[in-house]
C-alpha cells in the first residue's frame, strides 16, 4: 500500500510539467498558431522561477515570474509571426534555440545553488490517510493548479463565448475577421497564455521536481508536450490522460528495472513514448473527429488584407 502511494506520487511529479506545457500549447494551437518554442519557453521559465525564488523572492513570486518570462518569450514569437508574418515553424524552432542559450546565460550564477522544494499541502487527518491521503491532500500547490488549468481550459473552450471565438479564429480566421473579431488580438492572447503555462511547467521542474537549476534541464519535455497535444487530438481531457500515461510508464519502467525485470534498458526507456502514442492513437482513431478537432488554419499566416 505504501509503495503504491509513493509510486503514484512520482507519477504525479513526472506528469505535471508536461501537463502545464501541453495545456498551454493546446490553447495556442486552437487559435491556429503552432508554436514549436515550448522547450525554450519552459527553460526560460525554469531559470527565472529558480532565480527569483533562490534570490529570496519566495515561491509565489518565483512561479509568477516564470509565467511572465514564458509569456515574454511567447510575445517575441507573437510579434514575429503574427505582426511581421514570419514562418511559424521556423520561428518556433528559433525560439527553442534562443531559450536554451538565454536560460544558460541567465542561470550562470545559479548552478550548484541548493533550494528547498515547494511545500506540500498538509491537512491534519486527511493528508495522513493511507494511499489517497498524500495523493489527494498532500501535493504541492502547482499540482492542484495544473488540474485547475485543465478544467478551466476545457470549460473555456466548450462553454464560453470567448472560447467559441478562439476556435473560430483557429478554424477560419478570414471568416472570424469578417464577423468583426480581431484575429490578431485573439491569437496574441492565446500565444501569451501558452507561454505562461510553459513557463510554469518549467518552474515546476526547477522548483518542485528537482529543486535546482541545470542547463537544459527540461531534457526534451517541451517536445513531448507538443506531441501530446497532437496525439490527444486537441482535447484537454486527453492531454491529461496522455501526460499521466507518459509519466506513469516512465516511472513504471524504472521500477521494473529496479526490480530486475529482464528486458533491455534501452527498450524500457522507449516504452513511455511507445505506450503513450499507441493508446492515444487508438482512442482517437476516428478520422472524422480528428478533422473536427484539428484547428483548420494551424500554422498558416493570416493577413487581414489577404
Amino acid at each position, binding site marked *: 500500500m505504501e509503495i503504491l502511494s509513493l509510486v503514484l506520487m512520482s507519477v504525479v511529479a513526472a506528469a505535471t510539467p508536461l501537463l502545464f506545457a501541453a495545456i498551454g500549447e493546446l490553447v495556442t494551437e486552437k487559435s491556429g498558431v503552432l508554436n514549436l518554442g515550448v522547450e525554450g519557453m519552459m527553460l526560460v521559465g525554469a531559470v527565472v522561477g529558480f532565480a527569483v525564488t533562490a534570490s529570496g523572492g519566495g515561491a509565489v513570486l518565483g512561479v509568477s515570474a516564470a509565467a511572465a518570462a514564458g509569456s515574454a518569450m511567447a510575445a517575441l514569437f507573437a510579434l514575429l509571426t503574427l505582426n511581421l508574418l514570419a514562418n511559424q515553424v521556423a520561428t518556433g524552432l528559433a525560439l527553442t534555440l534562443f531559450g536554451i542559450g538565454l536560460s544558460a546565460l541567465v542561470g550562470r550564477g545559479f548552478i550548484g545553488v541548493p533550494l528547498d522544494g515547494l511545500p506540500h499541502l498538509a491537512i491534519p487527518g486527511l493528508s495522513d490517510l493511507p494511499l489517497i491521503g498524500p495523493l489527494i491532500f498532500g501535493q504541492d500547490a502547482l499540482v492542484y493548479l495544473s488540474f485547475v488549468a485543465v478544467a478551466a481550459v476545457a470549460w473555456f473552450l466548450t462553454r464560453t463565448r470567448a472560447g467559441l471565438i478562439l476556435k473560430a479564429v483557429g478554424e477560419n480566421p478570414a471568416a472570424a475577421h469578417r464577423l468583426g473579431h480581431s484575429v490578431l488580438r485573439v491569437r496574441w492572447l492565446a500565444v501569451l497564455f501558452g507561454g505562461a503555462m510553459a513557463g510554469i511547467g518549467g518552474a515546476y521542474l526547477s522548483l518542485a521536481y*528537482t529543486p535546482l537549476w541545470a542547463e537544459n534541464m527540461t531534457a526534451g519535455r517541451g517536445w513531448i508536450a507538443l506531441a501530446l497535444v497532437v496525439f490527444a487530438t486537441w482535447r484537454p481531457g486527453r492531454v491529461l490522460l496522455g501526460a499521466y500515461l507518459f509519466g506513469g510508464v516512465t516511472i513504471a519502467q524504472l521500477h521494473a528495472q529496479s526490480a*530486475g525485470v529482464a528486458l533491455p534498458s534501452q527498450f524500457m526507456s522507449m516504452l513511455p513514448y511507445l505506450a503513450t502514442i499507441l493508446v492515444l492513437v487508438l482512442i482517437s482513431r476516428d478520422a472524422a473527429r480528428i478533422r473536427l478537432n484539428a484547428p483548420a488554419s494551424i500554422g498558416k499566416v493570416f493577413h487581414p488584407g489577404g
Partner: protein
Amino acid sequence: MRITRRRFTQGALAAAAAPAVLSFGGPARAADPLKVGFVYVGPIGDHGWSYQHNEGRLAVEAEFGDRVETSFVEKVSEGADAERVVNQLAASGHKLIFTTSFGFMNPTLKVAQRHSDVMFEHATGYKRADNLATYAARFYEGRTISGTLAGHVSETGVVGYIASFPIPEVVRGIGAFTLAARRINPDLEVRVVWVNSWYDPGKEADAAKALVDQGADVLLQHTDSPAPMQVAEERGIKAVGQASDMTRFGPSAHMTAVVNDWAPYYVERVGQVLDGSWTSTDTWGGLASGMVKMAPFNSNLPAEAIADAEQAVADIKSGARHPFDGPVRDQSGTVRIAEGERASDELLLGMDWYVEGVQGKLPG
C-alpha cells in the same frame, strides 16, 4: 571600407563562428611563454567534469606564472565542431593542448597529425601518436571506498545504483562498488537502473525515487546531476556524490564523493614540456597518484565505517589491495578472476559482465 549589408552579415557570422578563446596573461614577451590550450565539453560552471579540468588549468597558472599562458574553450560539442576548435588552438601558437572528453578523440588525432610540432593530451581515449598522449583516472578505486561505506551503513541490505550507459567504465564502477560492499555485508544486493543519459535531473530523480521506494537505503550514481543526492536527503537515506563534492545538496545524506583532481597531472605535464622531457604516454592514475580523491567522509557516519574506508584508501594507495582482488565471480557464479590474482588493466578496460551480487541483467 563601406559597410554593406552583405559585409556586415559576413562579419557577424565570422564573429559568431569564432570560438570564444579566452586568453589570460599579457602579450608576448621577450621570452615567449608556453601557450597551453584546454578544450572542455561542458561549461566550467557545471561543478562537475569540466569544472574539475578547469581547476587543473588554474593550478598550472599558479605553478608556472609568467612562463605559461593558458587558454580554454568551453561547451565544445563532441564531433565536427571540436576539430575546428582544436585546430584553431594549434594554429594560434598553442604548443600543448588538452582535450578533455572522450568524444574529442578522433578530432584530436586528426589535428595532431597535421601539427607535428604541437603536443596533445586527450582524456579518457585510447588513440595515441608520437605527439598525442592519453590520460584517464581510475574512478573505480573511489567506488571501492564508496562500497566500503555502503556495506557498513545499509540496513535494508539493498543499494540503488543509477547508471548512465552500459559501457565498461560504468560496469567497472558497479563491479568495484559491489565487491567492496559485499566484503562488509555478504548478503547485500545492488540494484541498477539505467537512465540512458549522462545528465537529466528529472529522470535521475525518478530513478532514485524508484530505487528508494523498493527498499534501497543507499544511493550511488554514475550520472552527473545532484538530483539523486536531493532525493536521498529528502528520504533520509545515504548517498555518494559524483565528480565533485555535493554536500550542499544533501548535508546529511552525503557520505562522500569520488572527486577528480587533474591538477597534479597537468602541472607535471606542462613542466615536462617546459624542460623538454615530454613524451607521448598513457597514464591511468588513481588514488595513489592523487588523480582520484575522496571528498571528506561525513562526520555522521559510524566511526567503524570511516576507519574501514580510510584503511581501504591507504591499502589501495600502497598496493596492498586492489578493487578486483580474486576470487571474483560473475552473476552465474563462474570465477572470472582466480584467487590470489588481480584484474589486469586489459580486463578492466573491456569489462562487460556484472559481478555476483548485482541484480538484473546487464543490457547488451
